[in-house]
């Protein structure tokens, strides 16, 4: 399937949006202007964008603790995202969730999650609902390599396969879970090998190559939509920063390893590719990056100046009927 140039550029924009958002989120965290943990998606942009560009607007995704990229890729508004990070009442979660729980149900983004792999059973449930209603929607469940060692992952994939649920399991294999390299915690180096145990296709793709991700995702999504069940799509990628924030404090990663992955920065690769294809010149790309940078500055200003939750908000949203909270 040939993509329109417009969409190719849009993919560049979206990746840039994520990068510009997260670089700033990191800075805001360092400056203690925002609170809580911020897990950066920098380096992994091609996965979220490559996959989400293959989805329909009313399809669903579930995310992880590292969720900014997924939300932006699904159409999230940086204003409301920064507002959430600033714990403002007009943030996506009304300031009550923060980075680790950011969600936008109206965009089909069911939520980041603070519990590793917990999105998988939820995604199973969402996709179950689509099958139940025959609404034709597909759910994408994002998760890390580390998450595949949690029981929740295993249970969800098995059950999804049995139910032939319209779901795609997308593993962002960035080679680490927190500060633990994959080899010390995970019995396979290719997470896709785990697909065999669930009788579903396991596909490996270069997660730094947005077109490769997009193609593989499109196929898996089409398969899910046809009612043929889940696919386990493993995207080999890398996070450029530490587990939380940017600091490399606790991270004794090999310098060469870092350098070799950074050389394959998915945004630079795509920029180069677009230039080579004659779709986007360097100047045009710079202009986009500049414009998006400004968009982010505006969003931060918007967020910082937004109203805090009011004290009564503490007691709201515990239950759907008001008044039930003690």
């Amino acid at each position: 399937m040939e993509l329109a140039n417009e969409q190719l550029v849009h993919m560049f924009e979206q990746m840039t949006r994520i990068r510009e958002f997260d670089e700033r989120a990191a800075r805001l965290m360092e400056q203690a202007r925002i609170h809580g943990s911020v897990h950066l998606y920098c380096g992994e942009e091609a996965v979220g964008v490559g996959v989400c560009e293959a989805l329909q607007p009313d399809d669903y995704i579930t995310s992880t603790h590292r969720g900014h990229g997924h939300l932006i890729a699904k159409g999230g508004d940086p204003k409301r995202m920064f507002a959430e990070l600033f714990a403002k009442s007009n943030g996506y979660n009304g300031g009550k969730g923060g980075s680790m729980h950011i969600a936008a149900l109206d965009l089909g983004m069911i939520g980041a999650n603070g519990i590793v792999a917990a999105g998988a059973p939820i995604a199973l449930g969402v996709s179950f609902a689509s099958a139940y209603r025959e609404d034709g929607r597909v759910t994408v469940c994002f998760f890390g390599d580390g998450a595949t060692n949690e029981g929740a992952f295993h249970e969800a994939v098995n059950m999804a396969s049995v139910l032939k649920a319209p779901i795609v399991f997308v593993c962002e294999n960035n080679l680490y879970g927190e500060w633990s390299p994959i080899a010390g915690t995970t019995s396979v180096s290719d997470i896709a090998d785990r697909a065999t145990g669930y009788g579903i296709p396991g596909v490996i793709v270069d997660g730094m190559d947005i077109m490769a991700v997009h193609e593989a995702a499109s196929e898996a999504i089409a398969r899910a939509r046809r009612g043929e069940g889940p696919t386990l799509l493993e995207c080999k990628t890398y996070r450029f920063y530490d587990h939380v924030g940017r600091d490399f404090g606790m991270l004794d990663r090999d310098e060469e390893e870092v350098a070799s992955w950074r050389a394959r920065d998915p945004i630079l690769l795509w920029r180069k590719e677009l230039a080579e294809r004659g779709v986007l010149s360097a100047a045009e790309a710079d202009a986009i990056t500049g414009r998006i940078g400004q968009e982010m500055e505006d969003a931060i200003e918007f967020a910082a100046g937004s109203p805090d939750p009011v004290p009564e908000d503490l007691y709201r949203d515990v239950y759907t009927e008001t008044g039930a909270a003690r």
Partner: protein
Amino acid sequence: MSEKNMTVAVAEALDQEMDRDPDVFVAGEDVRVGGPFGTDAGLHQKYGDKRVVNTAISELALTGIGVGAAAVGLRPVIEIMIMDFVCVAMDQIVNQMAKMKYMLGGQPTLPIVLTTHAGIDSSSAAQHSGTLEAWFCHVPGLKVVMPSNAYDAKGLLIASIRDDNPVIFISNKRCLQTSTEVPDVPYEVPLGVADVKREGDDVTIVATGRMVIDALEAAEQLAAEGVSAEVIDPRTLSPLDTDTIIRSVQKTNRAVVAQEAVQFCGLGAEIAATISDQAFDFLDAPVKRVGAPFTPVPFAPVLEDIYLPDTKAILAAVREVIPA
């Protein structure tokens, strides 16, 4: 209207709600064959694989089906066979189901009922006899329901399914076989409303689940001795209908709280602390508690018998608070 046991009442409630609302479905292990206690009897024949989802032995996935499906608009009834098994599903119940609405700033509505079977019954031993309502009462975002008879069970379950919040619906195993008159038509017993199962003036017995039956028996025996006991069944444990309890103690000036669960740190502690605080000026004696001892549930019938809180234990507690 006819005499039905709680098992039948539960199955009837499920059937009638599934019939009424196509968004309601049941998922669980062996629900296809009616569930291990028969509470899903007939459902699979009537509604088929689509709406009676027989899952793998995967309680996290099973509960996740509930959370995810509810988040996008369905009304799942999730069955965890035996209450001790909630241990393998705790994350989806507590960190997801209970907190999701709040963490997401109110975005989703989560009309989920999680049903389970609890309590001691014929030597099921330490991993199949638990009644863990106290854990869930400690978790904001959940409602917790525990009927003591068939009538309440049907009405509470229907109300739970229609409620827009996650409800943990706990059937005590020994209650399942007891019968009451149960209307054939659907009806709701409202959540959050305690029931005065017997009126009395001398002492208030607040009892939950199977202890309600024992408390009523104790009240009967006490009546013969000239002691008039009021028996309150909270039915919904969270939110707890404190008002009804306090009003009663203000009248009787004495209270006993009875639960089948381990006494230490149980719901009975919350009820006793609340009475002791809010009815402080009315109490003529300390609030006494009845509950299981601080041991796992033993297998041996001779030990299980001693372990199990019963009518005798309630009577002993009442005698502690009522001067001879």
